[in-house]
């Protein structure tokens, strides 16, 4: 009984039917994902279709989303199992050595995409000429930064990620006497000056009382930003400092003072601080003579890493990124009249896997073709002799 069940499962996973159905599903997913990018932006569409186990859809007559299609994660997982079963099932003979290599290579390719899907982190770093930056920031995720600015030479930064803010409740800031009471979190909101008849934000301190706030649906398009906003009440030593409005839409940070320490509050893109820093020494934007067609962008950066006792110049330019401490920094954008350089930063621990896969598959195809060629030459020879 158990044996038949096991052999059935085995037969299911190694079947060609499964391969074809999965490849077809993957094709459909790729089509959906590509078309969805027009609306959702690349990151949004990839998360919805590829980096998920199911594609969810919210029907208007239901209060919860339902899975409507297998997502890239599920199809990829099944395809990997199918591939492994198939690879194990391929006759273990020299004649099939090529196919073995090809399919093993494909398994690694899929594994690479899984690792990327689960662990790849995309951030960026904007530096103006002459500026030194020791953090990368997220494209979309936000945080509430509470900064102790008392010491003019040193900022003590405490940050609360948006995911924690959206849960609400009270958040104690470690290392300080402050507790934040989150009154309301808006993932996206539109702010305006409070006019007659406007909806007051509910803030009682700082700039907030003069601002009207309206909640907006969140956006995922590459070109749009969520204006995350939060109403918080800092409490320290049993004393409330009023309700403050912090928002991506507000420029300058607002601050309050508690027992001689000045704390500033601001909403900003989530930062990850690095144990090293980059100083932009020069940014170049070359064009072809007599045109606006860009020929090259490059950033000359001084990398300073105290823990490695390292300080060196690096030129980051088109098709020539810097790989440093597990991160890849590449020239992505520019601004402020060519004085601001934007480096995109990717961290993917599985970046080597596609290379391994590529070598295996190419080798496998070569071996297979060689075997097939030898066989057909032999057949031709036999025909001549026979």
């Amino acid at each position, binding site marked *: 009984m158990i044996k038949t069940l096991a052999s059935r499962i085995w037969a299911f996973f190694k079947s060609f039917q499964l391969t*074809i159905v999965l490849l077809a599903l993957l094709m459909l997913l790729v089509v959906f994902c590509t078309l969805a990018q*027009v609306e959702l932006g690349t990151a949004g569409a*990839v998360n919805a279709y590829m980096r998920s186990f199911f594609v969810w859809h919210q029907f208007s007559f239901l209060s919860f989303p339902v899975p409507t299609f297998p997502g890239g994660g599920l199809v990829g997982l099944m395809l990997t199992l199918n591939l492994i079963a198939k690879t194990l099932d391929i006759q273990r003979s020299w004649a099939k050595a090529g196919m073995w290599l090809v399919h093993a290579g494909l398994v690694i390719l899929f594994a690479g995409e899984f690792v990327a899907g689960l662990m790849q982190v995309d951030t960026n770093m904007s530096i103006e000429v002459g500026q030194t930056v020791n953090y990368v920031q997220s494209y979309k995720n936000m945080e509430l930064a509470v900064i102790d600015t008392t010491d003019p030479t040193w900022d003590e930064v405490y940050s609360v990620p948006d995911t924690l803010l959206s849960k609400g409740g009270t958040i104690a800031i470690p290392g300080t006497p402050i507790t934040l009471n989150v009154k309301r979190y808006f993932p996206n909101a539109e702010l305006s000056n409070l006019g007659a008849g406007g909806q007051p934000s509910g803030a009682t301190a700082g700039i907030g009382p003069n601002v009207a706030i309206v909640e907006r649906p969140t956006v995922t398009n590459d070109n749009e930003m969520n204006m995350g906003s939060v109403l918080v009440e800092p409490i320290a030593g049993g004393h409330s400092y009023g309700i403050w409005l912090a928002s991506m839409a507000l420029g300058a940070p607002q601050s309050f003072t508690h027992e001689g320490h000045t704390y500033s509050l601001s909403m900003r893109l989530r930062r990850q601080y690095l144990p090293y820093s980059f100083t932009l020494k020069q940014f170049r934007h070359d064009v072809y003579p007599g045109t606006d067609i860009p020929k090259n962008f490059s950033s000359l950066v001084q990398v300073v890493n105290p823990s490695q006792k390292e300080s060196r110049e690096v030129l980051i330019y088109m098709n020539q990124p810097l790989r440093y401490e597990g991160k890849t920094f590449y020239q992505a954008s520019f601004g402020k009249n060519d004085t601001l350089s934007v480096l995109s930063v990717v961290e993917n621990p599985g970046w080597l896997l596609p290379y391994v896969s590529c070598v295996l598959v190419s080798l496998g195809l070569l071996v297979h073709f060689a075997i097939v060629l030898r066989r057909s030459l032999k057949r031709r020879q036999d025909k001549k002799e026979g």
Partner: protein
Amino acid sequence: MTFVQKYLAWGAGVLALLIALIFALPGGKVRGFDAAGFGNIPILDGGRVKPLDSLARNSLLVIHSRQGFRYEGRTIGPDEWLLDVMFRPQVADQQPIFVIDDPDVIGLIGAKQTKNRNYFSFADLSSHLEEIQKQAQNAQPIAPQKRTRFQSAIVNLFDRAYLYYKLRNTLQLAGSPGLGWELQSISDAEASARHQELMQFAAFRILPPLPGGNPDAWKNVGEGLRAMASGQGVHPALVPLARLNAAYAANDPASFNQALADMNGVVSTLKPGALSHANNEVVFNRAQPFFVGLSIYFVAFMVLCISWIYKPDLLRPTAYSLLFAGAIVHTLGLAARIILQGRPPVTNLYSSAVFVGWGAVILGLIVERMYRKGFGTAVAAAAGFASLIVAQNLGTEGDTMEMMRAVLDSNFWLATHVVTITIGYSGTFLAGAIAIGYAIRKHIVTKVDPETDKALVDMAYGIICFALFFSFVGTVLGGIWADQSWGRFWGWDPKENGALMIVLWNAIILHARWAGYVRERGTMVMAIFGNVITACSWFGVNMLGVGLHSYGFMDQAFYALTGFIISQLVFMAICYAPARFWVEKPHGKA
């Protein structure tokens, strides 16, 4: 095949090559003027040094959709046209070269649309320029995808009229006495304003860099005059240019040709090599290898079709030799582009179409050598013809040898990733073309011939294997390029997805066949669908206008693509029509 037939067949191929050669020969003088020599003068435009001839052809192509036109019983070529625009605007303004198809735009300029009159001269437009500009400025802020038909048409007309206007005011201000007069009145009261105007409208830079300066610092006439007015001396090319201008306006061929020789002397002293590089490009322009190639492919295809009903022993090899001749012309054209540009063959959408056709033709030639049934020739000629037609239509938007934008500026990856993936496109299209041939043949051939059917399926199968290999390797190489330059192997960007679709589809066909789910006909139907996938991946993703790869949005192409997809679906239906529709038809009825 008899000896005579063999010679006749190869003779046809040689004849085609001779005709191609005639195209490359320089034309005679125009009314005594060495217009071709004028077209040879190097200029800096669009970031590269090119002959005036290229600028003339591309501008005329943009404005008129052709590289020449008939006027007053004569054919006016691009060089003569440019001479007229720049030196005799009063003549050029009367020539009806602006093509306008949109009825609303025609209505706007006050002419009634008639069957023959979609061509307007600059003089016809000139009284409506302000209105055209106003309407175009209203439409310009709207994204190209979202413009109405009228808005697209008016923006397009404005761009063409503006290009014409710029050409008119590049070497002399239209309506002024000419460049010689500018040189004499260098310090009069309005001179500075005129120089400013010449600088603003200059369509190109014709004054070569002076010794000791930046080697890329070509100047336009306005800049040259300004430098002269500020006491930096006369640029040595300005004097012969002024003489060219005066001689052409005064209809004096002898002085014109003499001034041209002097101009060439100045250019070769200031920028050695530019003249001969320009000359090579002019030969390439004149030869029009892709136009000649597509004409030869067309003839080859026709000859082959005739061979199925008339004198197959003579006509089939003739078609093959014509295809061979077409492939030689096509290859030479491709090689010339590689040399002129110093780049691998595929650099933009236009050149990808040229290369896809080339790949399909070469594959078809090989298939024909292996099977010798005429099918390889037929599909190769059809595929070569079709892709070069596509290329001709893609090439009407200006210079096809434009400079590469920063991220694409990598000859290594252009040569590996882009070329392999384009070969994958070629293979998938060729397999699809064979499948279409198979489907049509099933319906029109009366006798059952399983051997030929099997040969066709074998061809398609072999080519799909080939296409899978190249598209897979090309896609992975693309991933590696992305990892090398952006730090990520795969980002599900539309262009990457398009390439992946081709890999997946070819993999599905092969697995379905290995597993025995599809046989002859199923494989062929799937191969035809490969055409749809490849076309969508090639052009469709550019229409979405998202992602890092999207280079150029095309609106008219959308309709062409839709039409192509529908036609392929029809072919799939034809191929899949049940057996009673296509085998064992009674004789005499078919």
